[in-house]
């Protein structure tokens, strides 16, 4: 089939590439669709807007305008709270000189939103990698939460329970967190490898077991409870705090660099090493990989150990970067968020970085948005779930936007292998 490819101008090629419905197009449209639905949701749950619709026939434009303003206002505030806010720049240029601007904190306030985004993205990126890496090996890790808790317990204990020289203490705590997570993750891999227990159920069960275990540890003084009645651990040593990257006024810390390094490590592991090749081989087809001489069971354990380690690092980054102590609910929604991050990033380290930054931005912008517009910050969770749902169903997006179906580019194709496989 040596068909002559017709020469097309660049713009046409680009248009065709977009229309083909490739990964980037589908992702962007999924985000757009989610934002439209989220906008409708915010507009039609707002009391002022609903009242305006009540008098729609007397002043229709007022109702429509108000709905539009409410919806778009949410996104503007989210943007200003997470990327940059024009007001801070205006204030910066009103200062007499650069030195006063620097001294009075006007310069740092310009970068505060983006710093908060990076701070929020750090645990999302690490736990997202903890889902994405096993995903490449055909395992679905819902246990980011349990591994996070495992890491947090070790990191916190090392943080307050032992005293070490300043520089070493930080490193030991971070490594301890990594090991704590790896143990929990490794247990899942080991159970799957030796008994065939399905990792999805095992990880879900481990989430609850570890949450209860944490509550148990935090309810006895001779275990991990700080003096007092609250289920909370003692504060960790200030020696074990992760240092800030750009001075005390911006909260972004070394944890962000660690998470980026972890992404590079996972990329290197997957694409440049024999182990990574084996991971991907058992992810594509375990039977074929076994025939080719890959030790499938050993790789299951290994990939879960690494994944657990990454989730443990996330815990260390949170404990040593922002929380400085462990509470009974510190694990929050990291486990579920990790899944959404990994799915949006399509299980690729590079994609996970972008996904973590996007969701980090949503989380960073939410509190400011809530206080200014009055729209509850939980809209962010809705957006997150909607985005991932549409990303996971490329055929839906293609159907809605009439894109051509060519190269299949979906998460579904990676993992639709059945429950008993």
């Amino acid at each position: 089939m040596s068909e002559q490819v017709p020469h097309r101008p660049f713009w046409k090629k680009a248009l065709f590439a977009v229309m083909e419905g490739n990964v980037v197009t589908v992702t962007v449209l999924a985000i757009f669709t989610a934002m439209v639905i989220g906008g409708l949701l915010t507009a039609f749950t707002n009391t002022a807007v609903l009242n305006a619709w009540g008098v729609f026939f007397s002043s229709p434009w007022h109702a429509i305008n108000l709905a539009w303003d409410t919806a778009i206002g949410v996104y503007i505030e989210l943007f200003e709270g997470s990327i940059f806010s024009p007001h801070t720049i205006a204030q910066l240029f009103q200062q007499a000189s650069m030195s006063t601007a620097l001294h009075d904190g006007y310069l740092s306030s310009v970068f505060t939103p983006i710093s908060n985004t990076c701070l929020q993205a750090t645990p999302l990126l690490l736990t997202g990698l903890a889902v994405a890496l096993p995903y490449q090996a055909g395992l679905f890790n819902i246990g980011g939460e349990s591994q996070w808790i495992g890491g947090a317990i070790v990191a916190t204990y090392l943080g307050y329970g032992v005293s070490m020289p300043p520089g070493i203490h930080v490193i030991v705590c971070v490594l301890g967190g990594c090991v704590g997570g790896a143990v929990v993750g490794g247990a899942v891999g080991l159970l799957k490898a030796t008994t065939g227990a399905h990792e999805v159920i095992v990880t879900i069960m481990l989430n609850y077991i570890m949450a209860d275990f944490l509550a148990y540890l935090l309810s006895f003084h001779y275990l991990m409870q700080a003096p007092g009645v609250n289920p909370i651990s003692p504060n960790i040593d200030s020696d074990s705090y992760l240092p800030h990257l750009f001075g005390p006024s911006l909260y972004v810390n070394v944890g962000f660099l660690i998470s980026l390094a972890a992404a590079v490590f996972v990329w290197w592991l997957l694409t440049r090493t024999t182990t990574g090749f084996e991971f991907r081989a058992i992810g594509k087809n375990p039977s074929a990989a076994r025939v080719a001489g890959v030790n499938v069971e050993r790789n299951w354990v290994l990939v879960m150990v690494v994944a657990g380690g990454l989730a443990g690092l996330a815990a260390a980054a949170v404990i040593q970067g922002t929380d400085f102590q462990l509470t009974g609910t510190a694990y929050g929604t990291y486990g579920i968020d990790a899944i959404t991050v990994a799915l949006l990033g399509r299980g690729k380290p590079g994609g996970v970085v972008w996904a973590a930054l996007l969701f980090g931005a949503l989380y960073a912008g939410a509190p400011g948005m809530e206080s200014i517009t009055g729209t509850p910050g939980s809209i962010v969770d809705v957006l997150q779930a909607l985005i991932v749902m549409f990303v996971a169903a490329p055929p839906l997006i293609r159907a809605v936007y009439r894109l051509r179906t060519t190269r299949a580019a979906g998460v579904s194709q990676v993992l639709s292998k059945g429950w008993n496989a």
Partner: protein
Amino acid sequence: MTTTATERELPVLLVEPPVSSFRRWLAPAAFLLFGLVDILVLGGYSHHGDAMFAFSAAGTKAGTLTLPARVTCYVCGGLTLALALVRAFVPMSVTLRRVAMGLVTFLFLVALLCWTDAGQAIPFYFTDLLQTTMITSIPIMLGALTGVVCSRSGIVNIGIEGQLLLGAFLAAIVTSGTGNLWLGLACGAIGGCLVGALLAVFSIAYGVDQVVLGVVLNTLILGLTDYMFDAVLSPHSTTLNSPNTFSAFKIPLLGDIPIIGPVFFNSNIFLYLTYIALFVVQVGLFATRWGLRTRAIGEHPTAADTVGIKVLAMRYRNVIVVGLLAGIGGAYLTIGSVGAFGEDMSSGFGYIALAAMIFGRYSPIGAISASLLFGFCFSLAQIMGSLNTPIQSNLLNMVPYVVTIVVLAGVVGKVRGPRAEGVPYVKA
């Protein structure tokens, strides 16, 4: 486990299935452990004094059993040790083995309860414990039944949690808004169907991985209900989030039987609906044409298609309709017990239902039994927490999850799900 040549050639000669030495000693070792715990931990560390068990409702004095706590623990432990010996050296049939396992568990519970109540002034209300167990288990049971039907049709339903949550949300808001409990119940049930419909459409029409989809649906419903709670329910809590609840009604005659009556036949509509649901699903799956076809599309959709069963249509219908049950289970959480809706109020019941389904080996009766076992653990933890016992309720709360992992790991026996569960069916 590899099958050797001898086994394959001479299957008739092997009367007993081959058992590895690890498995051979597992049960006696577990019995031994329980016996030692009964004697050394529960007996050794129990307070002096008697344990009282009341078998009637709180308030009445009749039917109280008083046992010396420490001695009872020793006796239970001794009996368990004897059972361990018997189990180790006497060959037993499957039924006898199960009876032995049940006995050990029962003795352990007696010892545990004696230890809990030793030296306490108030008796341990046994009926209360069973009543709480039944009530706590309602959402788990209904969720597990939903899971069973979905799995049997070949769709993995991780979204039970979302179904419960949306059911609870809609039931609360509709009941509060209209004042009509039955309308609220219906809307809660429809909430479960809605999530089921999303699950069906995305997994069947768009081929999204069902496990991923289930988790994402749960996140979506959690986010949505959280948002609606913050944006709508909290500001208008008197009009939109203060529903009345179904009150209990006693079934005449049956409800008057001691112990059994108050536990099984004196509750609100949800428990009775659960009985009906169990009956319908059990009989439906194993004694009707619908059930045969459902099991067929879950095990071997291609074969089912060949004989003319519409696989995809049937999967759609089953997944959507059976969402009713989980929706009712969710409605129980609000209009069946506490009334007002709270953020994340299903608090993991959906995942426990999933575990109960697997533990119950994908059969309705099994799933219900497992749900009751899990419910029992939670209520025991709750009651022991209120009795100020030295044991930590968190540890007891862990039991269902640990049991599930142990079952999954095949220690107690291998669980095999429907063959085509989670595999999208594409017509060849």
